Structure formats: structure tokens, C-alpha cells
């Protein structure tokens, strides 16, 4: 048996208005290169960093949401290395004393309670971006361009303990973390845009032979899907090496998006000595208990809390609660519908299937949809009173969204009421039996499947409005009499 051991290092860009240490705007995505810069974030001689207080607030929010212990006194440090996208020649980070430590994120995975411990959260600044000509990296490039817009954009780095035991679990953790950061409104969570980045450490333990592979770090994973894919690839690669007795190097690998595989970047020996030391330009960060308490009081409900509450209060299945609870807007819409209809299970079903389908199909966000709890309330009443069938209700749904009209009004306008009149249905069935005696004979000889023909005939004549249960019952009765 092989055991997979995964730990993650996640960088989350904080969605503050300005950068971490200067007053340049922080949202620089796709802006003209080198236009959102100043003496501080381009490392001009003499420029000094000044800490953005919002960054601290956001980091504390994340730390509290991830159940961390907040260090009321934390320090800033310099991580020194040379690279063209790092204008000062060092990154300001928190190495010796981070703002928060020892937390966890709990969730349900395959019915089990799972808890991934958080080792630390620290504040740091982002580097710039480079484009290389004729090569993937600066070595071998015929030329390289640097865009310093992203320099100084605030990040928090979240480091987990190696508590994750499968690639799929890693992906779920990342998704829940994204949902949590979004609920806190401190990070857009877009992996594709680089607002959330994930480096993963993976090693494999061969429990039978008591062997453990070296740890491999996988960098450059830029989507939730690839978190799973890259780790699956790496797991297979390491297991194969263990089975064939070849070495697993302690190294850093990068996820190659195009080839769908990981490629070796550098070995452990090639790693920099970052020469960490206390940042003399920034005094230690001192927080008060009151400050932390104030932030704690204002924390919104977090996805995991919400999921548990939805299960508890509405009795919906874990899967439904997870889908609904991961998004604050969707879950509060669900709760409104559940309360006004008093039918939480139906509400959940209709929202999870019909509403989400329409949202995806039309690309319109929920808050722009012209329907509210009232629509669901009336729709459920029409169903309960058998005024419409489920089939008709599903036809009604997109019409409601197109027009914003209430379902009873649409039913009236378009004559979609269900036909429950047994006499009327009997007449149609009898007429059909008269015009097709052969089918009647077949049924009576045991070909029960022919029944569908008569049901279809009724539906055709009533344009689908006949009560399906009533039709089935009447057809069977008349054919068997």
C-alpha cells in the first residue's frame, strides 16, 4: 500500500486597493506594463516601504478564518536573491515571526471529517512578471522583458502541514480555501489570473516496505483542476520510481500545462541561500487584543460553518449543502426560498439543477436573475395542487427567467394548466382504443409496453398538460377492463 503525503504552500493576492508598501493601486491585472509603479515598488535608491494597514487587517481575517493563533507581535524580514523581477534584490516577507501560526481548516471528505493543519500564515510582497524570448526561462532566452506592475502587490502565504492524503483532497482543500477567502472578501480566488497560487510538496510512503520517497515540490500550478492533475502525475511518477527501485530526487518540479506533466526545475543543491535578516526599514508589527477581537466580531459566516448549518437547519444532503454553501449569495438565496416555501429539499433540488443550469447557460449571475422566492413559492404550490406537472414546471422555469413573470400568470397566459378531468381523459383514451384495436389486442395478449402508445396519444392531444399519474391510471384501467 502506498500512502500519499501532501503539503501545500499557497500564495493569495490580497484585494486591497493599494499595494503592500506603497500607494500604487494593487489591482494591476492586464494593465499596460510598467504603468502602475513608483519609486518604492521599483526599488529606486532611497525609497522606503510603509506597511499598508489593510494588508494587516486582511491577513488577520484569513488567520482567524483558518483558526490560527495570531502573533500580536510579528516582524518583517528580507529574503535576498537576484532576479530582474525583484527590483530591490530582496523580497519583504515575514520569516522569523509570522503574523499567524498553528491553525486548521476542517471539511468533510467522502463522509469523513478531515482537518488540514495550517503551519503558518505570513505577509509578503509579490514580484514582477517576465516575458522571455525564444525560451521558457531567462537562461537561454535571446531577450527578456520585465513588467514591474505586480511588484509590491500584497500576498499572504499560507503553509499547511503535510496532512493531505490525495490529489483530490488537495483540490478540495484549495476550493474550500478559495471559497473561504472569497467569503472574507480578501482575495478574488482566481487561480487562472494568478490571484491564488499553489505550490505542492508530495512524498509517497510505501507502508509495506517501510520506505518513504524524497519530498518533491511542484510549482506553477495555475488551476484547481491542475492541482489534482499535477499531483496525480507526480504520485504515479514517484510510485513507478519506488517500484522500479530508481531514485526520487529531492527537487523542485514545474507543472507543464501544455504537456500535462511535471518537469524538473532545480535540485535541492541549486537552491539559493536567501540570507534572511530582520527588515530594518519596518518596525515590528504590534497588534492589540482589541484589534483582533474587533476583526473577529465582524467576520462573515464561513463556507464550512455555512455548509454544516445548512445540513443541520434544512436537512439537505451533504452534497447539496456543499454546492450551495460554498457561495454566500447562492446559499442565502436558497435559504430565502426554503423559508418562503417551507420546502427546503425541493428548494435545494430546483436551485441545484434548474437554476444553476440557467445561470450557467445564460452566463447571468444570480443577482441579475429576475426571479425571487415568490416564483418558487407559487411554482411549488402549482405542483402540489397538481395544476401543473413536473414536466410542465421544467418548461415553465426558463420562461420565468426570460420574462420575470410569476408561474401562475405564465400558466394562465399560455394555457398550461394541468388537465385532471378524468372524463375528458377517458374520452381521449377510448377514442384511441377504437381507432387502434390492434394495439388493444396486443396489450391484452401481454405486450404491456403498448400502454405507452395510449399515454402518448393523450399527451399529444392535451399538449402534455394531462396529469401524468391520472393518465397512467386511466389507460391501464380501460385496457384491462
Amino acid at each position, binding site marked *: 500500500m502506498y500512502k500519499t503525503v501532501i503539503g501545500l504552500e499557497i500564495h493569495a493576492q490580497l484585494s486591497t486597493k493599494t499595494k503592500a508598501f506603497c500607494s500604487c493601486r494593487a489591482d494591476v491585472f492586464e494593465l499596460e506594463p510598467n504603468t502602475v509603479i513608483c*519609486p518604492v515598488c*521599483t*526599488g*529606486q*535608491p*532611497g*525609497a*522606503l*516601504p*510603509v*506597511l499598508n494597514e489593510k494588508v494587516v487587517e486582511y491577513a488577520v481575517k484569513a488567520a482567524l478564518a483558518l483558526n490560527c493563533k495570531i502573533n500580536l507581535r510579528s516582524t518583517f524580514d*528580507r529574503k*535576498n536573491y*537576484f532576479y*530582474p523581477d525583484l*527590483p*530591490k*534584490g*530582496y523580497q519583504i516577507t515575514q520569516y522569523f515571526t509570522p503574523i499567524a501560526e498553528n491553525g486548521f481548516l476542517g471539511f468533510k471528505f467522502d463522509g469523513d471529517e478531515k482537518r488540514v493543519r495550517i503551519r503558518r500564515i505570513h505577509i509578503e510582497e509579490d514580484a514582477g512578471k517576465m516575458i522571455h524570448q525564444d525560451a521558457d526561462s*531567462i*537562461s537561454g532566452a535571446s531577450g*527578456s522583458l*520585465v513588467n*514591474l506592475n505586480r511588484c509590491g502587490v500584497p500576498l499572504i502565504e499560507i503553509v499547511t502541514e503535510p496532512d493531505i492524503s490525495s490529489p483530490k483532497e488537495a483540490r478540495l482543500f484549495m476550493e474550500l480555501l478559495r471559497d473561504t477567502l472569497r467569503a472574507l472578501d480578501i482575495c478574488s480566488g482566481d487561480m487562472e489570473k494568478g490571484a491564488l497560487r499553489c505550490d505542492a510538496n508530495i512524498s509517497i510512503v510505501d507502508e509495506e516496505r517501510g520506505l518513504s520517497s524524497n519530498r518533491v515540490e511542484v510549482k506553477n500550478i495555475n488551476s484547481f483542476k491542475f492541482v489534482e492533475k499535477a499531483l496525480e502525475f507526480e504520485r504515479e511518477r514517484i510510485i513507478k520510481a519506488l517500484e522500479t527501485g530508481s531514485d526520487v530526487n529531492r527537487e523542485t518540479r514545474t507543472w507543464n500545462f501544455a504537456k500535462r506533466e511535471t518537469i524538473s526545475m532545480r535540485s535541492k543543491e541549486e537552491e539559493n*541561500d*536567501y*540570507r*534572511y*535578516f*530582520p527588515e*530594518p*526599514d*519596518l*518596525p515590528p508589527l504590534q497588534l492589540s487584543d482589541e484589534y483582533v477581537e474587533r476583526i473577529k466580531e465582524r467576520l462573515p459566516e464561513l463556507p464550512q460553518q455555512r455548509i454544516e448549518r445548512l445540513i443541520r437547519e434544512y436537512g439537505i444532503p451533504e452534497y447539496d449543502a456543499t454546492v450551495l454553501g460554498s457561495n454566500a449569495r447562492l446559499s442565502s438565496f436558497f435559504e430565502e426560498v426554503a423559508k418562503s416555501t417551507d420546502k427546503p429539499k425541493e428548494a435545494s433540488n430546483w436551485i441545484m439543477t434548474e437554476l444553476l443550469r440557467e445561470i450557467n447557460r445564460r452566463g447571468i449571475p444570480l443577482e441579475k436573475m429576475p426571479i425571487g422566492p415568490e416564483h418558487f413559492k407559487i411554482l411549488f404550490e402549482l405542483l402540489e395542487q397538481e395544476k401543473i406537472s413536473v414536466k410542465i414546471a421544467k418548461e415553465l422555469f426558463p420562461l420565468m427567467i426570460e420574462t420575470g413573470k410569476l408561474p401562475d400568470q405564465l400558466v394562465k397566459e399560455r394555457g398550461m394548466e394541468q388537465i385532471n378531468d378524468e372524463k375528458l381523459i377517458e374520452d381521449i383514451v377510448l377514442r384511441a382504443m377504437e381507432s387502434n384495436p390492434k394495439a388493444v389486442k396486443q396489450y391484452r395478449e401481454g405486450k404491456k409496453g403498448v400502454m405507452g402508445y395510449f399515454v402518448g396519444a393523450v399527451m399529444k392531444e392535451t399538449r402534455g398538460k394531462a396529469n401524468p399519474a391520472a393518465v397512467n391510471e386511466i389507460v391501464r384501467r380501460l385496457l384491462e377492463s
Partner: protein
Amino acid sequence: MKGDFLDLKIAELSKLSTDEKREVLSFFHERIVAFNSELNAFLEILPIPDSLSSGSLSGVPYALKDNILARGTRTTCASNILKSYLSPYDATVTARLKNTGAVLLGKTNLDEFAMGSSTEKSAFGPTKNPWDLSRIPGGSSGGSAAAVAAGLVPFALGSDTGGSVRQPAAFCGVVGYKPSYGLVPRYGLVAFASSLDQIGPLTRCVDDAFTVFKTIAGRDINDATTVNGKIDLRAKELPEADLKGLKIAIPSDALDFEGLDERVKSRFLEFIERLAEKGAEVSFVELGILKYVVATYYLIAPGEASSNLSRYDGVRYGERVESENYEEMIKKNRDTGFGDEVKRRILLGTFTLSSAYYDAYYRRALKIRKMISNRINEVLHEHDFILNPTAPTLPGKFGEIGDPLSYYLMDIYTIPANLAGTPAISIPVDPVDGLPVGIQLMGRRYADLELLSTAKQMEKLSGAYNNGLAKIPERWLHV
């Protein structure tokens, strides 16, 4: 009237009429142009502006050490790597002086990146000592000290990391003041060792030092290490001080230091006698930390410097040497851009910060720094001030000190104030053999006003002054 401008304090210059101020500017500008070829105090001489702005220092000319940014001027740090770097913004001190109407006439020479004590380490040639052109002016703010000593500007700003304002002031016979760490913003001062650097004025009297200090000090939103509310800067003039009853500690280990020149020592002891005559309570105290200060400083300052100077890679600005690839490019840029002393300190700092040696050197140096601070604070708890010679020697001849270690020992008396963040001021006392001698008064952290008031009283006991201003050598009195 003309020659009389050299006899005016800054407050008096700022009160002249607009026409007189124009005369003042031309007067000093002419002197800079006339004398700089001999002194090499200036790296860049600026034209007189067309119009004067109002303010408390309106029309008062000054110079900036060339590691302080002033928009539109070059800021070279006396280094080849920045020889054509144009300042894109104003340092906070520059902006504050501009706002009060002071007029920047030039940028002064220094040891490259302020790393040195003689201004010999400038990539653009040494500055000469105005008292003896064959001698060093001290450093690293040697250009600023020489400019003020020769009367080329009424004041100049320098930066002091281990004595770089006070020691050249002592060697050039002027006043050099390093404020408490955190009182004067460093934004726009090219960092050497951030936890030690402090900008300070070089002037010809303590009153002028106070006037300049008042203008440049105070919390800056661009410098997180500046402090607020520690000192009241509203006073128009320095409060009166009385030497009588002042408790002054004389570090006996400073006087026992084998590198102390006998002539400096005797001048210093003479001055102590005068202080005692005025009623000061002078006592000899064993500091016990002096043997650690230079080593501690040369672990911490190069460590910070190695990181602060990483940005000079030639990628975004500065000189660039064409190369085959990135690594070769930054190696060549830094190899040809930096001088030997800078390289020596970068190497030293890179070593002490490396993960294998961090605990053994840098972390221990931080601990010893704390210990030194504690000891200084302890002595300053029992005494009002600590007084010692500013430098152990008289200004030497160019090239006289060859080995780095003796060179570094020139700062032994000045470094403690940087390590402890305390304020210290050097004032000139009676010269020896025609060469200036300075004494340093150090006070409690943030007790800068008390320090300046007391130093002002001490000036009265010094033979280096004439009508309240430090004497200018005969050679430079007339153009």
C-alpha cells in the same frame, strides 16, 4: 557688505531683503565655482534659481551630500554604478528644505555609498581638507564638511551611519550633528545601513544646526522608522542651558585607547578643565563596551549594506555592461560599478548573513548591539551626557592609512551613538598645529534639544569660533 555674509548665522541670512538674498546666493555660488577645483567638495554644482520662495529659510543656500535625492539632480553616491542616475523624486529632507525656501546649490562628495571615513573612497576623486589640502577631510560626508568649513555654503546635509557627519565635522573644524534615530526621515537617503543611518546637518555653529534640524525633523509618512511626538520642534530658539551642575561622563576607556593621538587627548583634557571651571560635574566612567563597538558595527552595517546595495544590478537604472546573459550582466555591472571598499563590505555582509554563519555572527552582533545600547543608556541614566573626542586622531595625509582595520578604528568614538540610536554632536575646540580637533557630546535618546542647548554653551569655551561661528581658514576668505 559682501564678505560679511560669512559672518551671518542662518537665521540672520533668512531675514535679509530679497535683493540681499540674491546677493547672498551669487556670493556663495561664486565661491563654490571658484574653490571647488581645489577642494573637490562638490560633484554637481547647480545654477541659482530665477525666483526665490518664501519661508523660514528663504534664500539660504545649502548643499546635499550626494546620497540624498533632489529631483532633477544626479544622485551618484560617488559611485560609478550610479554616475548618471537622475533623482526621480525629492528626499523628504529635500522637500522640507524646499518648502521653507532654502536654495540647493549643489551635491557634495562622499566615500562611495558613504562607506568610508576619509572621502578617499569616492569614485570621483577625494575631497581636500580646507585646513590643509594634503590631508583628508574625514568622511564619509567629507564634501559637505569641507564645503561648510571653507564657507562655500552656510550649511550642508550629511548622513551618519557610524560617524559620517561628526568625524568629518571634527576634521574640518565645523559642527556636525547626528540626531536621535527616528527624528529625521530617511526617505530619499540612499540606504547604507538602514538601522544606523541618520541624516544630520553640518554647520558653523550649534544654533544653525538647530535651525536646520527643526526644518528637516519630524514624522514622515514615507518612513516607518520615524517617530512622532518625541520632541517639541516648535521652539524658535534653543532653550537656555547651564553648564553648572551638569553631570558629564568621560569614558576612561576612550582615553586609554592606544590609538588616541596625544595631541587630541591633551586638547580634550584642556577642554574638560574649562568645563569643570564652569561648574560642570565631570566624572570618569569605564564604559566597558568600547572594545566591541567596531566589531559589532562591522557585522551589522555590512550585513544591511549587502542587502541594500542588491538593487544596483543595472537592470532598471544605473550603468550597464553589455553581456551574453543575465548572470554575466549583473556580475559585470557590479564588478565594474562598485569600488573596492564597497565590494569588501558587500562580501563581508553576504558572509555574515549566510545561513551557515548567521547565528554565529549577525545574530550575535544584534545581541551585543543591544548590550551596548543598554550600557550607554545606563551611563546616561546616571549622567546627563557622555563626552569624548570625536575622532582618536587628527586628519591624516591622503593614503596614510592603508589597512582597513586601522581605517575602521577612526570611528570608534562615534559608532556607539549609531548603535544606540542616541543623539550626538561634534563641535570644534582649539586646533592643534593648525589642524582642527572635535569633541563629541552624546545625550539620551530624543533629548536632542537638551543636547543642542548644552553644546551651544560649550561653544563659548572653544577657541575655534569667531563671533559665534566656526572660523574659516584664511585661504578661503576671499575669492
